[in-house]
Each structure stands twice: as structure tokens, then as C-alpha cells.
């Protein structure tokens, strides 16, 4: 008995040792595959063009911040960040104003319309919105909203509604009916119930939606690229114009990437665990 246990545990230990050595090796390889380009990106933004050309991976001899100023001059990134913020705030407000009552209706109404509505929105999760480039472009043109930031403040919320409604409805189903009933008995209207009972009790879901919308809107490129113009363009579009030069200047490009990513990096460094765990969980529910 004791020998078999020892044998088993010894076999296990041996295999465990091999498994973890192998894991460490490939994890380190992947970590290097990330670290080297990111190091190249960070240092290139502090080097002069000639220095990058001479040694792309050398450590910067002097801290030279001029690539940032040149990137800003060439692409007007800060102004574009303002456009992104404007579209972002509009998207956040419109998404919540539309999604909260809809999620309440879907979660609480016993009519057959409720599951049907939820299905209509769930189907949206399957559609790659990218495929709708041309028809969305035409719709926005028909509305007379070409080149305006307003156009994306209508389109982005529409793309965010499926996931938002599904997340909020699943949070709302967890709220006991008794709480709602007692509010109704006290004479509260539907909207008052939503405002004073459901919104406070689904705060974590709302926060998650706000964060995920932030990331999606901040990083969206293609629709903004096609619909906006030089004055209204967003930060991703502005930064990407740095690629247009005949001979790409990696210092300039790096500075653009770093500037345009700072808000997202801050967001992730505060909420990383929450975001990924919820994305994983939320996507399974959908």
C-alpha cells in the first residue's frame, strides 16, 4: 500500500516538474515576444530618428521627448482625444438611457414579448458589425449626419445595446420581486421603481457596461475612419495617420500609439481583473 502511494506520488511529482518547466519556458518565450516589441515602442518614442535607424533596440542615449511633440503637431492627437471623449460621453449616456428601461422590461414583464425582445437583441451579438460598413455609412448619409460626431453617438450605442441589455437584465432578474412590489404599493410609478430600486441595485452591472463601452468606443477605428473628417476625427484615426508617411517614422508612430493608449492603460490598470472576469462571464451568458 505504502509503496504504491509513493510510486504514484513520485510519478505525479515527476510529471508535475516536467509540466511546470515546460510551462515556464513557453511562458517566458511569449513574455519576451511581448516585452521586446513593447520595449522597442517605448524607447523609440524617446529617440531621434537617426538613433532609431542606427540601433532600433538600443537604449536611448538621451531622453528626447521631441517625437511626442512631432506626433502631436502632425496628427493633432490631443484635439482628436477631445472628439473621442465627446462621442464617448454621448455613447455612455444614450446606451444607459436606452438599455436600462429595456432591460427592466425584458427582465420583469411576463408577456411573451419579453423573451422575444431579448432574442432580437441577442442575435446582435452574432453579427460582426464590421460587415455593416456600407449600409451604416449610407444610413448615416441619409440622416444628414455625415462627418458629424453625432452619427457615431447613435451608431455606437446601437452596437453596445445587445450586451448591455443582456448583462443588465441578468442583474435585474436577481432582484427580489418583493422589493419591487412594496415600492409599487407605496405608489411608485414604473419609472420611479427603475430609478429608485433597480438602478441602485444594479450598480455593478452599470459600471461594467460603462467600462466596456469606454474600451470599445476609445479603440474603434473603422467606422470613425470612414464617417468622420479631419475636424471631427477620433484619436485612433488621428494616430493612424502617422502611418501615412512615405517612409514610416517609428519614433513618431510609437509616440502616437503611446499617447492614444494612455487612457485605456489607466482604465485597465484600475479594473483589469473585473473587466476580464466579467467579459468571460458575460459572454457565456450571452
Amino acid at each position, binding site marked *: 500500500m505504502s509503496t504504491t502511494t509513493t510510486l504514484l506520488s513520485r510519478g505525479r511529482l515527476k510529471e508535475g516538474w516536467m509540466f511546470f518547466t515546460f510551462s515556464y519556458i513557453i511562458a517566458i518565450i511569449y513574455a519576451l515576444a511581448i516585452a521586446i516589441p513593447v520595449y522597442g515602442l517605448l524607447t523609440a518614442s524617446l529617440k531621434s530618428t537617426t538613433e532609431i535607424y542606427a540601433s532600433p533596440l538600443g537604449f536611448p542615449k538621451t531622453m528626447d521627448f521631441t517625437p511626442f511633440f512631432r506626433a502631436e503637431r502632425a496628427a493633432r492627437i490631443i484635439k482628436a482625444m477631445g472628439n473621442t471623449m465627446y462621442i464617448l460621453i454621448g455613447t455612455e449616456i444614450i446606451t444607459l438611457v436606452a438599455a436600462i428601461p429595456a432591460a427592466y422590461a425584458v427582465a420583469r414583464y411576463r408577456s411573451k414579448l419579453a423573451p422575444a425582445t431579448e432574442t432580437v437583441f441577442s442575435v446582435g451579438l452574432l453579427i460582426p458589425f464590421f460587415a455593416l460598413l456600407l449600409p451604416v455609412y449610407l*444610413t448615416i448619409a441619409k440622416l444628414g449626419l455625415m462627418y458629424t460626431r453625432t452619427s457615431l453617438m447613435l451608431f455606437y450605442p446601437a452596437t453596445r445595446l445587445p450586451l448591455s441589455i443582456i448583462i443588465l437584465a441578468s442583474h435585474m432578474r436577481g432582484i427580489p420581486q418583493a422589493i419591487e412590489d412594496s415600492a409599487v404599493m407605496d405608489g411608485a410609478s414604473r419609472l420611479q421603481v427603475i430609478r429608485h430600486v433597480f438602478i441602485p441595485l444594479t450598480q455593478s452591472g452599470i459600471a461594467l457596461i460603462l467600462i466596456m463601452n469606454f474600451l470599445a468606443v476609445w479603440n474603434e477605428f473603422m467606422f470613425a475612419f470612414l464617417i468622420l473628417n479631419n475636424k471631427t476625427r477620433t484619436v485612433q484615426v488621428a494616430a493612424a495617420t502617422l502611418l501615412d508617411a512615405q517612409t514610416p517614422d517609428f519614433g513618431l508612430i510609437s509616440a502616437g500609439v503611446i499617447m492614444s493608449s494612455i487612457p485605456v492603460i489607466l482604465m485597465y490598470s484600475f479594473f483589469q481583473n473585473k473587466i476580464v472576469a466579467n467579459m468571460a462571464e458575460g459572454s457565456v451568458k450571452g
Partner: protein
Amino acid sequence: MTLRIRKSNSKLTFLLLVAPALVLYLGMIVWPFLNMLILSTFRWRGIVRPKEFVGLVNYIRLFKDPGFRQALGNTGIHYLIGLPLGILPGFFFGYFLHFRKPGHNLFRIMFFLPVMLSAAGVSMLFKGIFLPNGILNTLLQLVGSEGRHWLADPSTALLSIIAADTWGSIGFQSMFFYAIIGSVPRELYEAARLEGCGHGALQWKIVFPLIIDSFGVLLMMRTKHILIGSAQVVMLLTGGAPKGKTVTIGFYLYDQAFVAQRLGYSQAVGVFSLIVGLTIIFVIRLYTRRNDLA
């Protein structure tokens, strides 16, 4: 009577509550979707030009168009390489990290770095990696190997696009699996481990069936992305060059609509790729959906 009034009244409130969401969604997603189907039956060469109804001619043309066939082939290669290249290391790393061995926090931070970059940001970074005098060639020179012009060389261009598209997604998928495996109750697989079950078997025979739903979700997300969404990387890195070697279906859709101005035809490309994508997603869902999970 009162009952009926209350019922119709409740139907009305329901509609009022969902109205803002429904209007936005119908106007900006459902209508464009239907319009895509409609437009695909027209010959339409430029927004200011007239449309001409041609039925299914655009769809027939798809099969005779060498450009489309090339795009389809490139997307197939991207899918067959990019999908396993992202998801298998992702699952492996997620499983490894959840043991919280020394250094796992550092790995998590590292793996998360590329997730924080946007698609445009990743493309810009890879422009610098693949430049003739860029990061990759510098590294190759260190080990005495000859560099090349990765994005301009027809034999490496598509692989370079796939690398740029997969690079960061491994990190995202590792974090995804790390979160999912962490949410599985440990008791469910600890017993198997104590009985001497090796890591390979533990990972694929015990943990995998427990998280197969999430595995399916990730496969669907990646399918959607590779088939259509990855076009931005192509657009920013190569614009389809050299000789169409990097044109994927998503990029072809964009290119036919906005560059070649074959508006009706481009929508047939879109409908075709949607049908392919939805079919693959349906099959994935069929095989990865566990019925015991509510």
C-alpha cells in the same frame, strides 16, 4: 374587461420601455442589415450613380471573381493558422497561471500589455516590427540571420498579418481562460489530481469539459473577428499588397465598397461572409453547448 385593459396597458408600457433601445437598434443595426441584403441584388457603381436590379447576378459573379477567390483562400489560411495559434496557447497559459506559481503575477501583467492596445495601435507597432530596419530584422541580425522586407515579400506578407493579429490575442485568451478556470470549483478536479492524473489529462479530460461553454464562446468571438473584423490590420499594414497576397474577405468587402466602388457587389461579398461565419458559429455552438448549464 378590466383584465383586458390592464393587459393591453401593460403591453403598452412594455413597448414604451423598450422603445428607445428598439428604435436605435432597428435604425442602426437591423435596417442596415436588411439593406445589405437588398443592395446585394443591385448593380451599383458609385453612390451618385443609379442602381439597377440584377437579382442574384452578384452572387454568381462571386464564384468567377479571382480576387474574391484569393481573399477567400487568404482568410481560410488566416483562420486555420490564427485560430489554433491563439486559443491553444491561451488555454495552456490560463491553466498554467491558475496554479499561481512564483512569477505568475508578472506573467499576467506581461500577457495583458498587448490587450491594452487598440487594433490600430497593434498595427502601428507591427509596422515598426516589420520595417526593413525594424525590430524583427535587428533581432535576426543579432543571431546572424538575414532579415527581409516582411510585409512586401509575397511569401511572408500574409504570415506577417496573421502574426500581428494573433500576437495580442494570445494574451487576451490567456486572461480569459485564467478567469474562467479560476471560477471552476477546485474540488471538481482536485480529486483527479490526487489520484495521480497528469497535467495533460487533467487539462483536457477534466478541466476542458467543465469550461467547454466558454471555450465555444471564445471560438465564436475569434471566428467573427478573423473572418471579418481583422480587415483593419490588413488595411493599416499592407492595404492588401503585395499582389493581393494579404487581401482577406473583410478587407475585400471594404475595398470593393469604398475603393473599387462596386457597391452592390461588395454587399454580396458581405452576405456571403456572414453566411459562412454564422454557419461556423452555429456548428461551434452545437458542439460546445452543455445542456446541464442553465
